[in-house]
């Protein structure tokens, strides 16, 4: 979305409420592009949207999409 026109708009020609709403809309746009997407808790809908390291490289868990999986933490002693 292009707000270039909004930036030069004369606020006296707008209702105060409209001007504030536009500022909020711009702020929201900026926020959306600068806030990290990966809220591990909040944003992620599916395990298969995540990645994990294997052999020192990042692997998409999308490889297991449409499978039923059991995730288990293991140890050697």
């Amino acid at each position, binding site marked *: 979305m292009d707000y270039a026109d909004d930036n030069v708009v004369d606020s006296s020609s707008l209702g105060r409420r409209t001007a504030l709403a536009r500022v909020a809309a711009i702020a929201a746009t900026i926020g959306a592009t600068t806030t990290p997407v*990966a809220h*591990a*808790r909040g944003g*992620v*809908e*599916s*395990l*298969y*949207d*995540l990645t*994990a*390291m*294997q*052999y*020192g490289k990042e*692997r998409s*868990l999308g490889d*297991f*999409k*449409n*499978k*039923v*999986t*059991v*995730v*288990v*933490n*293991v*140890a*050697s*002693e």
Partner: protein
Amino acid sequence: MLYKKYRDDGFEILAFPVNQFGCQAPGTSEMEREYAYRKFQMDDFPVFDKIAVKSKPVRCKGIDPASYEEFKDDPDAILTAPLIDDVTSSSPESPVYAFLKQPPFDGEIPWNYTKFLVGRDGKVLRRYSPGDPLEQGMEEDLKRALAGKELSAKPKNPYL
């Protein structure tokens, strides 16, 4: 063995070595992977690199990954190889576990071999304590999940 029985129906095991419970995974990711292959008596399932699963860091020692080549075939590596602070035990919780541990499946992971059953849509269906998963009804849950059916309302044992 559930894996061999159901893998053709779309079942997969995802294993993550974790050195946060009694410092019981001091090997490198490669060593822990080999151990997991021996323990489960198969080597055709994914074992990822070591991660942290607890929300608070743990201080454990581990074999320096730089020593892996030298000690990879030494069964006594943990006694003879130089140990360093294991950054995987003191790291922040993995995003995978931050996702798995959402309500109603939240609560700290108590020990090795805690298990989460995840459906075809990537959502957690059930959590199991480290004990025998068959005693906790995993096979019945697995069959229903593979068939796209809802799980029975209550697990046989609460996981905590």
